[in-house]
């Protein structure tokens, strides 16, 4: 059984969101990293890029497959976790610690469409 943290919001495409004021911190769930297997490369956007809810903002590559990352919210990328460039395995080791991007949200109401931990647990199995 994969780990799901109660205090986070989730998307159906297995990204998690931690809300910090107007900033959304985005990563992928424990379920996603388990399904992907050993992650070998993180393709992330650059600081200053814009992302749109539901559209891809990068991709994860593992020995099994390449998988798109879909943004759970819209806004501007204000930070990118550069540590993942050399250490993509951090996502496997600690999926909820290894955030991928931080986004300054342009429409906070988009958060209402995301899943709670309980609702996400229904689909992540």
């Amino acid at each position, binding site marked *: 059984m994969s780990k799901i943290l109660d205090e986070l919001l989730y998307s159906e495409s297995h990204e998690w969101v931690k809300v910090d004021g107007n900033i959304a911190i985005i990563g992928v769930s424990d379920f996603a990293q388990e*399904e992907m297997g*050993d992650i*070998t*490369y993180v393709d992330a956007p650059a600081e200053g890029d814009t992302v749109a809810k539901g559209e891809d903002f990068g991709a994860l*590559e593992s*020995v*099994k*497959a390449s998988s798109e990352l879909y943004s759970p919210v819209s806004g501007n990328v204000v930070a990118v976790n550069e540590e993942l460039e050399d250490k993509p*395995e951090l996502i496997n080791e600690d999926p909820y610690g290894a955030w991928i991007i931080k986004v300054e949200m342009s429409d906070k109401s988009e958060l209402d469409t995301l899943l709670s931990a309980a609702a996400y647990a229904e689909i992540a199995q």
Partner: protein
Amino acid sequence: MRYYDKLIFELSHPGRTGYSLPSVQQYPFFAEKCSSGVAVDAAVPANLLRKSKLELPEVSEVDVVRHYTNLSQMNFGVDTGFYPLGSCTMKYNPKINEEIANHPAFAGLHPLQPAETVKGAQAVIDGLDAALAAITGMKHFTFLPCAGAHGELTGLMLMREYHMARNDSARVKVIVPDSAHGTNPASAAVCGLQIVEVKSGADGLVDVEALKPLLGPDVAGIMMTNPNTLGLFERQIGEIARLVHECGGLLYYDGANMNPLLGKVRPGDMGFDIMHLNLHKTFSTPHGGGGPGSGPVGVGERVLPYLRIPQTSGFHGNFGVMLRAYAYILMLGKQNVKMAGPLATLSANYIKESLKDCYKLPIPTVCKHEFVFDGLINDGAREGKTGATTLDVAKRLLDYGFHAPTIYFPLLFHQALMIEPTETESLETLDEFIAVMKKIAAEAAEDPDILHGAPHNAPIGRPDETAAARNPILKA
């Protein structure tokens, strides 16, 4: 299989030779020069003289023969054993194809020879064009593309050309089913088109209702494989073709899975306008390991005016592969070509039905040339034991002398194990494979660690794919 990884240089021993070459002074040029007292070195222009020592391995003939024979035995191919690699159509390649492709009258041709001296080669191209047109229901083929993905790009450029010539430049979207081969969206992207995914239904087929809202004046076309990646025939293809044509788009057929339809069903009759064939798969040429391939593109009535190929060019893609394909078609003949598809389909269904009690079968309907299992039914997981995965099953198959099936593709299933036996295997070989697959399932149920440690008998265990991908060493 004996492990062997020596370099020929490791066998080298100073002064050892297999053959003694005659002195250069026996050759008229040197005989003449050197008779007047000129040293051999001085007889050769300075710019043609080697400055450094020639580093060649010094070995006897038997060393050379054993070295390369041992290396060749480290390999596995269709000539060594059963190769059920799903989506790859690793059928047996008759040796007559090789003989014909290696015939000096063909192998010695130069692409820049005058056209009137290559009438034979031109006749082969024309004959193959006519045969493929008859088999697929297309009007004509171009043989320039050197592989499947090259064919896809060529086909999509033709699609774009068709729309542009009609001043219909708003068509920038290509619809691709979620079960498509990865090259389809990649080719569309390289061609500068946008990719729109259409979902499959629970039956594994393109959902016509999900397709309808995607169609419109911005759609250039749809790319499909039929049977699709799950080995299922897209039964709604007639309706899909009608809808796509109605909105002004074209249909592209990825010939990767043409094998089961060979001589039975024609993409042209299904409504496809452009297609490519993988000659190296369907028409039996040794492939894998990067080639050589051949991906001729065929077009129907609509697109024919845009296929402008100089028919007298000496550069017609991989001509050797075309020769093999033509030899294969002529050897089978009209009647027997029709048997390839049904036999490939029968083999796949036989394995599927024989193993469905041990392996999860997500889509239980009749398949075509290939099908997908979703891992073991009983993976042996219990207190203190991790279950065996599809990777473990694949590795264990190597111990029993079979090539592993395609694994973790298509992505629709998490433990995908994709098996394509082809029509060239005997019932005995299929039965042997089935027995081994059952044995592996029983081993997993009893102790999954047997599988986790596999392969136990192969010369190389499990290479660390993760480390190789994370820290690739690309230069010596």
